[in-house]
Structure formats: structure tokens, C-alpha cells
């Protein structure tokens, strides 16, 4: 698991922010797995945006390119 990624502590805080029940907890393994899932989510958004920019032959991934890949990304998650 090299490179950048989401820290377990951050993932824990992000999830607990939206739990409705104060007693809900997350196992350590689940936190690690969620960190991976979030990493994929971001990486997919970035890679698909990059592919779109390359297809349009632009050197910068702008929001115009990101908008086009957003629907499918959200459907996949």
C-alpha cells in the first residue's frame, strides 16, 4: 500500500460524522478497507478525468472534463 492515501483516523472521523447512532463503531480492518475504497474513488475520478482530457487533446484536466466522467463514476460507486 504505497503512495498517498487516507489515514485510518481521518476515515474514522469522516464516517462517525454521519452515523445516526452514537453506539455505531467501525472495526480496524473495515477502516483500512474503507481507506482503500476512498483511495480508489479519488484515483478513478482523477484517471477518468485524465483520459477524458487526453481524448479531447487538452493538457489540463479541468472541470469540463471532470463533469463528463462524473455520472458514470457515481453509478459505479
Amino acid at each position, binding site marked *: 500500500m504505497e*503512495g*498517498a*492515501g*487516507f*489515514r485510518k483516523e*481521518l476515515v474514522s*472521523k*469522516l*464516517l*462517525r*460524522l*454521519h*452515523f*445516526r*447512532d452514537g*453506539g*455505531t*463503531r*467501525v*472495526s*480496524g*480492518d*473495515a477502516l*483500512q*478497507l*474503507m481507506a*482503500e*475504497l*476512498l*483511495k*480508489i*474513488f*479519488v*484515483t478513478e*475520478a*482523477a*484517471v477518468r*478525468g*485524465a483520459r477524458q*482530457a*487526453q481524448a479531447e487533446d487538452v*493538457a*489540463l*484536466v*479541468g*472541470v469540463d*472534463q*471532470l463533469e463528463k466522467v*462524473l455520472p458514470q463514476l457515481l*453509478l*459505479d*460507486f
Partner: protein
Amino acid sequence: MEEEEEAEEQQRFSYQQRLKAAVHYTVGCLCEEVASDKEIQFSKQTIAAISEMTFRQCENFAKDLEMFARHAKRSTVNTEDVKLLARRSNSLLKYITEKNEEIAQLNLERKAKKKKKSEDRNKNSRESAEDGEVENEN
């Protein structure tokens, strides 16, 4: 009473802002990796947009995870719940399942290492006691 509620609202808001900033930082790092790999650049607005999306997606994830756990009559979210989250795309589910096994394997190895370390320590302290050396106070 209203002042208290307002102060609470303020606190929650600034807490959320701090979390958003932390997410933004990680998103920036990940985008940088993709940028150098694909030899392309991301605009600041794009990184901000991905960061905002990720933060919002966490709300959906959290609520789903909580409901999955409760459905299974648990109060602790486990990896099965996370795998359910990844059900919409086959390749995603496959990847997450593989990662789960990697993580489980790594944690098993770490536990085995820890156990061996403490066993070695016990073995060493027992041997030095037999040699009649002066033991340090614990």
C-alpha cells in the same frame, strides 16, 4: 438556549471544515500521483471538485454502512459491510475483496511477529535468570 444551539452549530461547522481540509490534502496528493503517471495536469478547481465529491460520498457510505451493520444486528461495522458498499461494479468488488484478503493476511503476519517477539523476550529473561544474573526490577 438558542445561543447554545448556535455555538454547537458553529463548532460542528468548523469541525467539518477541518475534515474537508484534510480530505482536500489527501485528494491533492493522489491527483499529483496520477498527474505524474499520466503526464498531465489537474486544475485547482478539479482537485477541489473531486475533494468535495469525496467528502459528500462519505456521508452516503457512512449511512449505508450503519444500516448494513444494523441489518445484521451488529453495532460494529465490519469488512462484510464495506464489501457490500462496493457491489455496484464487478471490478470494484473484485478489487476490494482482494484488498480485504491482503489486509487480513498482513494483520495476521503482524500478530505472529508480535507474538514471536514477546516469546523471545520471555525466553531471554528466563535464560538470564538461570545464569544467576541480577535481574532488573520491572
